[in-house]
């Protein structure tokens, strides 16, 4: 028997579809616009002819960005920071979460509080900046002069991620661990051979959380790495600096008049076009892995019912 669809239900459904479709299009449109602009001529962008599809298709700006060495050096920096930063954060988070998940750990509540307190209270920008400055100095003194290492080691902490891991480890049945222990497995073997394989989904999720935040990190990299060492910048800092220097879209207050004047002599595309191409390059990796990771993130959010 097919149920009759009532009028109120029909109206509701139409409204729901309409709003969802509009919102979904709104979410994608800016990216389509940027992509189209990256492959349009500067005059088409300036005259406002680009609305959805590329107008006056050409790839001058894109090729300009592809051949911009500085851009790719900074791109490599981002890859470096993302890779090592994720490995480092995941490493100490897994070890710490494993220890925290053990009931026999002495002072377990104290350690948990130690972690959770950082979610409640942060010292603020100024003390943190001073701390990072001191860190960089100490790293410099012991021979690590590349400021990328400050970013990799000292930033990107996330207590929520550790708690996600801890909860996942707590869910592993203790019988399996005991069996492994009777077979003579050491603590580290129990972690790597028993716990890690059984918490794959959580570890993947947490790794992605760490990785995405590293890829997207801007503020502290900008604060810690001065302009004089711009070859250590991650790509986000470079893009923003470029926008401030050569375009007027951010108010253009940092514009370097000489650089802006030389621009037209040296390039046959506008700086804004180059920004579009850079944005496209910076989000391509995210878009490429996005369809595969999307379900992990959804899972991660629903794991977030964190308890202690």
């Amino acid at each position, binding site marked *: 028997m097919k149920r009759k669809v009532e009028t*109120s*239900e029909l*109206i509701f459904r139409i*409204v*729901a579809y309409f*709003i*969802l479709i509009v*919102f*979904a299009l709104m*979410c*994608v449109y800016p*990216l389509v616009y*940027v992509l189209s602009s990256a492959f349009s001529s500067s005059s088409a*962008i300036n005259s*406002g002819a680009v*609305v959805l599809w590329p107008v006056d298709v050409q790839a001058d700006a894109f090729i300009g960005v592809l051949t911009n060495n500085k851009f790719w050096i900074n791109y490599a920096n981002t890859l470096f920071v993302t890779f090592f930063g994720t490995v480092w954060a995941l*490493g100490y*988070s897994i*070890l*710490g979460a*494993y*220890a925290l998940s*053990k009931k026999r*750990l002495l002072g377990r509540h104290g350690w948990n509080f*130690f972690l959770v307190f*950082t*979610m*409640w*209270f*942060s010292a*603020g*920008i*100024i*003390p943190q*900046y*001073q701390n990072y400055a*001191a860190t960089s100095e100490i790293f410099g003194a012991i021979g690590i002069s590349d400021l990328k290492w400050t970013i990799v080691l000292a930033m990107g*902490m996330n207590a929520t991620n550790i708690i996600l891991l801890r909860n996942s480890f707590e869910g592993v049945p203790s019988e399996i661990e005991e069996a492994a222990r009777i077979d003579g497995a050491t*603590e580290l073997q129990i*972690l790597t051979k028993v716990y890690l394989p059984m918490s794959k989904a959580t570890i993947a999720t947490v790794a992605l959380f760490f990785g995405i935040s590293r*890829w*997207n990190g801007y*503020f502290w990299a900008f604060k810690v790495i001065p302009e004089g060492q711009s070859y250590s910048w991650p790509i*986000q800092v470079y893009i*923003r600096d470029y926008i401030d220097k050569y375009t*007027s879209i*951010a*108010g253009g*207050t940092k514009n370097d008049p000489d650089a802006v004047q030389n621009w037209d002599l040296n390039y046959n595309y506008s700086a*804004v076009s180059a*920004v579009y191409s850079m944005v496209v390059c910076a*989000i391509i990796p995210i878009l490429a892995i*996005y369809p595969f990771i*999307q379900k992990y*993130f959804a899972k991660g*959010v*629903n794991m*977030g019912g*964190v308890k*202690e």
Partner: protein
Amino acid sequence: MFRLKYDDFLIYDEETGTYSMSAEQQVRDETEKNRWKNTGWTVLKDWRLYLMLVPMVLVYFLWKYMPMYELMGCFKNPNTGDLTHVSTYSWTGLKYFQELFTNAEYSPLFWRAFRNTFITAFYGLLFGFPMPIILALFFNEVKSNVARSIMQVCVYLPKFLSTVIVTSLVLVLFRSSAGGQSVGIVSQLFGALGVDNAVVNSGLVYTTKYYRAIYIIADLWEHAGYDSIVFFAAVIAVSPTSYEAAQIDGAGKMAQMRYVVIPSILSTVVIMLIMKIGSLLSVGYEKIYLLLGTGVGEAQDANYEVADVVSTLSNRWSETQEYKAMGTAAEMLNNLIGMILVIGANAIARKASDVSLY
């Protein structure tokens, strides 16, 4: 009333009519006596487990707790000592807190930032909180899995973009007509909706009147889709039999929403609301900072009036040595109130539902 911990504490000997301590209790007493000795031994035997804790504790100590130690900078005069580290400054007591509240030059800035923090957070809550719930309810209406997945992929996407990219998109779509370029495409839409052309041409982001709206729209764009995940999980957990029962009772769509769906997801909604209120004061500075522009110009100055929050103010003050202590004090106050809100929210959530996030 007093109760014995163990009922095998004493043994009654019927022959002699006397009580004696049970063997179990003797063992327990012995263990208790050696408790600390045993604890030390178990910890030593377990050193590998404690070693695993070390990297995490070290990282958190160095880069989360050390800055808290440096908070003492707000009780010290930054123009003393060797000017490089707070530990060398001389103590001033609560001088900078006093100045924050009473100094004619700084206190208006502080109060403005504090007010803006609340207003920004409040608008964020007012629009940012219902939107994900509405999206989740609507997603539930989409019966085709493929269509729903496609739409979900689209609305989650902005969350994964960096703040730099998001603000760049905002700035591009709302750009001014400076330098002979055309006005941003969304600004044109605003123009078509009746916003003054001169305002549109000068860049809506830098117009005090529209800045907040744009900030909130950008915030919704970035987070609403992703935040709907949690509510969608709650909505699809509603059992289909509930709907059927309601339909048999003659409930239309609205009545089903009102009497079936809303009550079922209410606990999730309440928890999320409490948590959102708890994090009210942690307004992200990165986006505001990037929208205002990294330089200080006329347009930015006007915008500070509505955009400047405590953390952006503190960041600005950090660039001048003599303002550092005041900036530290301002942000510490903000974060302390934030912490009280979080802890309070948690306590309420725990009472309300036996669920707490921490």
